């Protein structure tokens, strides 16, 4: 293809990428470098139904003028990235100085908001992703072996978890695991422990979220694998059978190698999806025990009266960096495969 044709061919998508991906990212990076102007405060007398008090108040007019002069806010450089709400180098230093063992150090460092969120996000990503792939593969194999008549309904029901809106799905489960809900109460009876609460214990909350994540995403892996299974070459399969391969060996030596590119694809999608886990945390009211990077951004923007844009922007940039780091190995692998084939 001549270069000119090629350029014209991808121009629309390049433009869209620039408008909807590059520009917003650039704007977020820019915002993360500024913080709010110093507030100009005045003392005012404040009277109401409960009497009068003297309180400090923001001088709105003076602030409006400041903002008109410098709309972006006060230059803070990388300050927001290093403050206690994000990478917290200073607090890590303090914790390092006052702790004696690695255990204590990690324990206290992992209590810092950013690292706590990062910890859960990574755990969620690396536990849910492999389970989704394995479970999705097993369902696909199972469904593929069913008689044709049963396939339709089974496929429909297997897809349900993905059709249900994540927030609704998590709310439904949330009520079921309540200590008076069907799952919560059953577990209490089985373990004979009336204080057992899936919502209170941090470990059990994590497990609940992981299980929910697998439940919700497995259908995606299933659909992809099921489609892939339809294309497994019949002659290879037949020769394997002729050679006396058992069903397990057929799966191991024919099906899995054939589906490998799909595994890479699902891993890629799931790594991205799971790294930005958010809805289940809100749905399960799990903020006490599990926060993710996306949740941090949400709480910076919605947690208080005035949104903390710089904080949210800095977390967004760090999340983007995280996604890049996570995807790099998978992308390198794909690139190598591509080169080998070419």
């Amino acid at each position, binding site marked *: 293809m001549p270069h000119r044709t090629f350029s014209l061919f991808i121009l629309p998508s390049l433009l869209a990428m620039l408008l909807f991906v590059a520009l917003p990212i650039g704007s977020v990076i820019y915002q993360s470098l500024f913080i709010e102007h110093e507030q100009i405060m005045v003392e005012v007398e404040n009277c109401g139904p409960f009497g009068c008090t003297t309180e400090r108040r923001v001088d709105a007019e003076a602030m409006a003028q400041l903002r008109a002069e410098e709309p972006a806010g006060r230059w803070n450089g990388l300050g927001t990235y290093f403050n206690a709400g994000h990478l917290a180098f200073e607090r890590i230093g303090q914790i390092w100085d006052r702790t004696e063992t690695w255990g204590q150090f990690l324990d206290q460092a992992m209590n810092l908001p950013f690292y706590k969120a990062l910890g859960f996000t990574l755990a969620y990503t690396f536990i849910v992703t492999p389970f989704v792939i394995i479970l999705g593969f097993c369902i696909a194999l199972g469904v593929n072996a069913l008689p044709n008549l049963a396939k339709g309904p089974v496929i429909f029901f297997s897809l349900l978890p993905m059709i249900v809106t994540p927030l609704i799905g998590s709310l439904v489960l949330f009520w079921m695991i309540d200590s008076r809900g069907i799952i919560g109460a059953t577990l209490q009876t089985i373990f004979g422990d009336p204080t057992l609460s899936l919502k*209170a214990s941090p470990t059990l909350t994590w497990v609940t979220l992981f299980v929910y994540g697998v439940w919700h995403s497995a259908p995606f892996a299933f659909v992809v694998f099921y489609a892939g299974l339809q294309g497994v070459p019949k002659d290879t399969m037949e020769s394997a059978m002729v050679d006396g391969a058992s069903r397990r060996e057929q799966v191991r030596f024919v099906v899995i190698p054939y589906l490998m590119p799909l595994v890479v694809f699902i891993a890629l999608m799931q790594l991205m999806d799971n790294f930005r886990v958010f809805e289940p945390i809100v749905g399960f009211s799990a903020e006490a025990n599990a926060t993710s990077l996306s949740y941090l951004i949400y709480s910076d923007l919605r947690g208080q009266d005035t949104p903390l844009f710089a904080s949210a922007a800095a977390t967004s940039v760090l999340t983007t960096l995280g996604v890049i780091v996570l995807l790099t190995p998978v992308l390198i692998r794909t690139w190598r495969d591509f080169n080998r084939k070419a």
Partner: protein
Amino acid sequence: MTKTLLATTSLAALFGLAGAASAQCTIEGEGSVRILANDFQALHAVVSRATECASDSVEVTTNETTEHKDIQVAALSTDPAAYTVAVVANGSLVPLLNEGLTRPLDDLVAQYGQNLQESQLIRINGEIMAIAFMANSQMLHYRADLLEENGIAVPTTYEELLEASAALREAGVMETPLYASFLPGWDLGEEFINMYMGSGQPFFEDGSAQVAINNEAGIAALEMMKAMTEYMGPDMMTYNSNEAQPYWENEEVAFMTGWGSRTAAFIDENGAVPEIAAATEVVAMPSWGGNGIPATTLWWDGFAMAKNISEEDAAASFQAMMYALSPELVADPEVAGLAAWLVNGYEPQPAAEGVIANMQAGAAPYPMTPYMGLLHTALGDNLAEFLQGQESAEEALEDVEAAYTTAATEAGFIQ
């Protein structure tokens, strides 16, 4: 200050009958009334009355949503503002004042505010910036029947509340008799603020935005909350004020710290379980540590008006709100029972007793300081681990201090 309120409410009762004569909403001139409000029963009663003012020349639109706090600043920043009236509380007025988005109401009060009482006017440096119409605070709800059967006195301090809970547990009446809204976020932050208010200590260092809760009073307040968890159900970290009612109606709890604005639903004898409603009573919030101050904050709900609107819209909106808040509002016994109204013509009802008792016992209003919201968020986000026993009180307060200082620095309050 309590005297003024009591005096005005009883005076209001006298004049109430006289005011009930005019029935129709008539607005001079034309204009558009656009109301943004929180979504609960008492506010709905006010807002729905304001909609009666719609006519050929006056258009009335309303948006009642629990998300009002998150949209109000953006909605009032546009010119003309998306809403003419913002129904606010003492906490949610602050962001509007910070941005200078509300207009002084002195001229409108002089012209149309004959029914208002002095205690309703929120004056900031002498200018009327908002009109309050109801008071709210948390109060102690209790099951009078259970206390009587077991010979337990109504607790007036948190120490007694814990003893009473222990007594109920020992008597085999209830395993987890306490309910308090410990859901991390706004609810949990509010619980700590209430508890800390009971110590009478300030939240901030004088004349600065530096937080001052990392002290003995802060630790004692946290320890008291921890002691409460002993008598709360296993799912307590998901308890919030919206979900209290099923627990109450299911006879799983006997004591609850709950909002006055929700009390009506708990004592409603036409509700789902009339016998429990009949046995439900409210008193002032308990004090603790021998300070004698009810551990709660006082709130008012009222309305402010947008700065970026035309004079016609402002006049029409103010008149509509005045019609909504006329004595006829509280002449309806059902509406009167919904809240502790500050409106002319109101006679205190059971739902208001707790609020008035709190005021009389010396509870203080929720601070209207601009950085209070940041501290509230920091508290809501950082206390759960302590309550679940994964952290010490000192560590929890240190986390709160760090989170608050970071946010306040970014917002420009601390240098």
